[in-house]
């Protein structure tokens, strides 16, 4: 396995800057997720690493070794795409064995059998080995695709939204298994997704991309707890973070068009006008709460309920455990955990450390 380094990668398509000076390091055995909306440059970044796309500036290094001049086949990477690209007429066994049978590798039949069987076991597809891939379900096909990538030990795994064509339950199950596999194999993995929950749950570190630029790199905790901008704050977390315009005066922040005034955390210097981000789990209904609103909507999700509390002209989303018994129109007192408030400038940049 390998350490992957991108140095000042730029890529231009006619009229667009697809990648604008992208640099990051993926450590050996790290699960590194590229997260961003459509058009952010995630897939292009992955394709540049694979050698399927050539950058206009910058370098790709594996273990310090320059890859720029190497063809995709010489980079020793394994790719898994959203669309499973399996050979429909071949059995699962032959699909898995295919990468090992490459004349470049010269693997013995016995060794191939051993590796295919091991891989099938890891992905819980041993019972499917004799089946033709055309007769498999979507989830099974994606397991085989992943199997075909891991059957040999490439330097780097590159995965481009491999779960997004699957239904929710399968996605959940494969998410857990991919993570387990990656951790137990210690494989260096770059994983592209637009789904924030996939990024949070699987990544050791996340790079958030937007419009061809890196906005923030950090652990899931960094990204969730200390978003670098309102863009990141809104991209990550469900339900979405509450975001308000506010005014600061004498160390009190007032959310516009509401009665909510909050003390500023000591040590933070704030401008007169700013944006305030409050995660829904930090808006807490409390019989002795200092703020008052009324319930305009409740969305019971099962494990928790999203309450929409209107206070003045503003609506506060609040995430509470269980299925709440509040009724629409109820007057609710609530508190806001001020130690967890995020402050942003009007340009969207984070103001505190």
């Amino acid at each position, binding site marked *: 396995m390998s350490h992957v380094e991108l140095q000042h990668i730029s890529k231009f398509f006619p009229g667009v800057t697809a990648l604008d000076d992208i640099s990051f390091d993926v450590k050996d055995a790290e699960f590194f997720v590229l997260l961003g909306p459509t058009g952010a440059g995630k897939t292009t970044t992955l394709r540049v690493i694979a050698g399927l796309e050539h950058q206009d500036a910058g370098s790709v290094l594996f273990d310090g070794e320059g890859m720029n001049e190497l063809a995709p086949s010489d980079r020793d990477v394994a790719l898994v795409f959203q669309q499973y690209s399996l050979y429909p007429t071949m059995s699962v066994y032959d699909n898995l064995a295919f990468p090992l049978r490459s004349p470049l590798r010269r693997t013995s039949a016995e060794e191939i059998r051993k590796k295919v069987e091991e891989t099938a076991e890891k992905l819980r597809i041993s019972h499917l080995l004799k089946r033709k891939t055309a007769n498999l379900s979507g989830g099974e096909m994606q397991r085989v695709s992943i199997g075909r990538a891991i059957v040999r030990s490439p330097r780097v795994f590159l995965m481009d939204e491999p779960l997004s064509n699957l*239904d*929710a*339950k399968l996605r*959940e199950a494969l*998410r*857990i*298994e991919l*993570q*387990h596999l990656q*951790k*137990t194999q210690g494989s260096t993995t770059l994983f592209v997704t*637009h*789904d924030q*929950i996939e990024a*949070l*749950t*699987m990544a050791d570190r996340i790079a958030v991309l937007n419009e061809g630029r890196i906005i923030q790199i950090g652990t*899931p*905790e960094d990204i*969730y707890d200390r978003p670098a901008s309102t863009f990141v704050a809104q991209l*990550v*977390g*469900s*339900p*979405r973070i509450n975001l308000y315009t506010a005014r600061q005066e004498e160390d009190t922040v007032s959310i516009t068009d509401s009665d909510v005034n909050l003390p500023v955390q000591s040590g933070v210097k704030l401008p007169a006008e700013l944006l305030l981000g409050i*995660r*829904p*789990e930090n808006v807490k209904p409390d019989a002795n709460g200092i703020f008052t609103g009324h319930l*305009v*909507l409740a*969305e*019971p*999700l*099962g*494990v928790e309920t*999203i309450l*929409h509390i209107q206070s003045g002209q503003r609506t506060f989303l609040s*995430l509470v*455990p*269980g*299925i709440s018994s509040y009724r*629409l129109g109820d007057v609710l007192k609530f508190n806001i955990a001020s130690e967890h408030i995020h402050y942003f400038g009007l340009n969207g940049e984070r103001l505190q450390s």
Partner: protein
Amino acid sequence: MATIELRQVEKKFGDLHAVKPLDLTIQDGEFIVLLGPSGCGKTTTLRMISGLETVSGGTIWLNERNVTWLHPSERDIAFVFQFYALYPHLSAWKNIAFPLQAQGESRETVEKRVNEVVKLLRIEHLLKARPGQLSGGDQQRVALARALVRHPAAFLMDEPLGALDADFRETMRSEIKRLHVLQHATTVYVTHDQIEAMAMGDRIVVMSEAQIQQIGTPAEVYNDPSNLFVARFIGSPGMNLVNGKYADGVVQMAGLDNRYAVPQGWQGAIKKGLDGGSDLVIGFRPEAAQIDDLGKLVGKVYASEMQGSSAVLHLTINEDEIIHIRTDRLIPYPIDSLVHFDINPQMVRFFSLNTEAAIQPEVTQ
């Protein structure tokens, strides 16, 4: 305003039952969600209510009037599809006004009703744009406005958020629900997304294999699923379901040496529910498991997931079964380490392995 009643409604395509005979009464002003995986019969049911699909048997009643054989246009029902079905060459305003103009309403009435509805949906700024110039979310808002403007007796919606990305879906979900709270028009809403169903429905009709599995409020289907299908389908992740053998108040689970002492109040019910057998399934939600060093049950760490404000720990308890425990965000446990836990006795459920049905608790005196 409308009540809708389905009496033994069924649909057959040749020999195949797309919908087996079902009964469903929808109250005036209710928001009903038909929930299930693809092919379960939910959309066919909706289309029979609308009249777009004929029934193979049974009757449909709208406000106690038999509408089974009425043309869709005679049923006073508005339909919203997953794909917006807007006229591409007309402005948003004209799209919204169209159903009223087609009914021959006066110009004043049209303007008044369109103004009302665009204000409600907050789309005043979009009225001049053509559908092609609008985002998916805005197109769906226009489609909703066009459905609302008619003041129909009932709304039928077929996965109206299915084509939107996750972010927008969350916003539109609460907008549609909010609209319902304000207007209280009877609504039948089809989705395969259990989160949408839970968040929006007054009651949820869970369907699978052409029939109804359970009808209940979100709390009922979540806390007391009627069978294994509902238990698995509702929740993300679904309910933990572990096979075991029951004898003398104790369940021996498969795999690791896990013996679960059944709460007193359940023992009689289980005996009765299993009808002499011993194969049962223990069900508990991820939040019903509590990690405790002295806990009597044990699993091996398979993976852990940070999910934002909380975390989920995945444990293997035998070769095939992974269970999920919801926890606060914490220092991750190393893979393969052993974790002890208990199940909150208020939140444990039991199912018969043979019938897959939930065992009903005995009524406490």
